[in-house]
């Protein structure tokens, strides 16, 4: 599913299918060819690709969502990263939660 589209419509229709809009169609207001500017979403230069990127991450159960997001940010050397919807951590004792004991032990 990465790249390899014959036209930009393949990409747009792929998004529509993922989003449950496969039964819709497009009405033409003003026929226009692909622009000569910008980049196809899958063909952006790497830096650009990362800066306009989303990671569907399989969060491990130990660390908090915020910690994981901070690690990803650090790994990719970014200024900004945010996650959608916190996945809470169960079963941390108060000692672990309040003292940072768990994270110290881990590193």
């Amino acid at each position: 599913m990465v790249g390899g589209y014959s036209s930009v419509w393949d990409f747009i229709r792929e998004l529509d299918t993922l989003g449950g809009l496969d039964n819709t169609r497009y009405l033409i207001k003003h026929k226009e060819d692909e622009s000569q500017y910008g980049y196809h979403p899958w063909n952006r230069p790497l830096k650009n690709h990362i800066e306009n990127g989303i990671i569907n991450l399989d969060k491990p159960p130990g660390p908090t969502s915020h910690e994981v997001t901070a690690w990803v940010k650090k790994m990719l050397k970014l200024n900004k990263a945010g996650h959608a919807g916190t996945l809470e951590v169960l079963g941390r004792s108060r000692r672990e939660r309040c003292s940072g004991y768990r994270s110290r032990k881990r590193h």
Partner: protein
Amino acid sequence: MSGVLVIALENATKVLKLLVESSKEYVALMELHRAVDRSSIIDVVNMFVGEIYQKPPIRSSVKRVLRVRRVNSIDILEIHNDRYVLMKVNTEPGTYIRKLCHDIGLVLGVGAHMKELRRIASGIFNEKLNLVTMHQLSEAVYLYEKHGDESLLRRYILPVEFAIAHLPKIIIRASAVDAIANGARLAVPGVSYVNDSVARGSRVAILTTKGELVAIGVAQMGAEEIIAADKGIAVNPTRVIMKPGVYPPLWRRKKEASEEI
């Protein structure tokens, strides 16, 4: 707890609101504090499908006021020893599954708690859509930094456009792109193609003819109206994602031209 955690990077953080607001799906393991017969478990669990009142748990990241949340479905996958219930829950964002298990326990009269939880979907992002582990990601970074191979990074990071997959789309002409990127409203002459599911007042995504996300906005006209109209505002952007300057500022030319006259 593990599972799907959607992380937006740099410029893509602008679409986070959309991702936070999308519905979530979980697999949860609930432990009942005493054995209860199968049929009561099934009955009580089904009572929690639909609109429910929920007060966020003591340990929570939001204000603890009673709120209404919609549980779209609960499928019981397995009941073990009349005490362990494995279930698939599809809910509106902001529903605490931990609290849901607790409340089911109260209604059953035996008490219960959540033992395990895994999020299997957040909006369109599920376990089949390029789900990557921290290990895979760090491998990809290593491969790029040590060997200059960017293929894994490219595969693991999805373009921001995936966040708007569920929105009706309007594709605009190249000449209108930079105006929108600078905060202008989308006028009818700028529209190239419009999805027939665009309705007045609905949230829509504005894309270029290359499929790049320019902005998210609220449609001021339905699809048919946009096709029929000669002028007027089609979309009021609420969040602009594309930075100005990616497309040429063709819209300034008109203004300069009119000033010359």
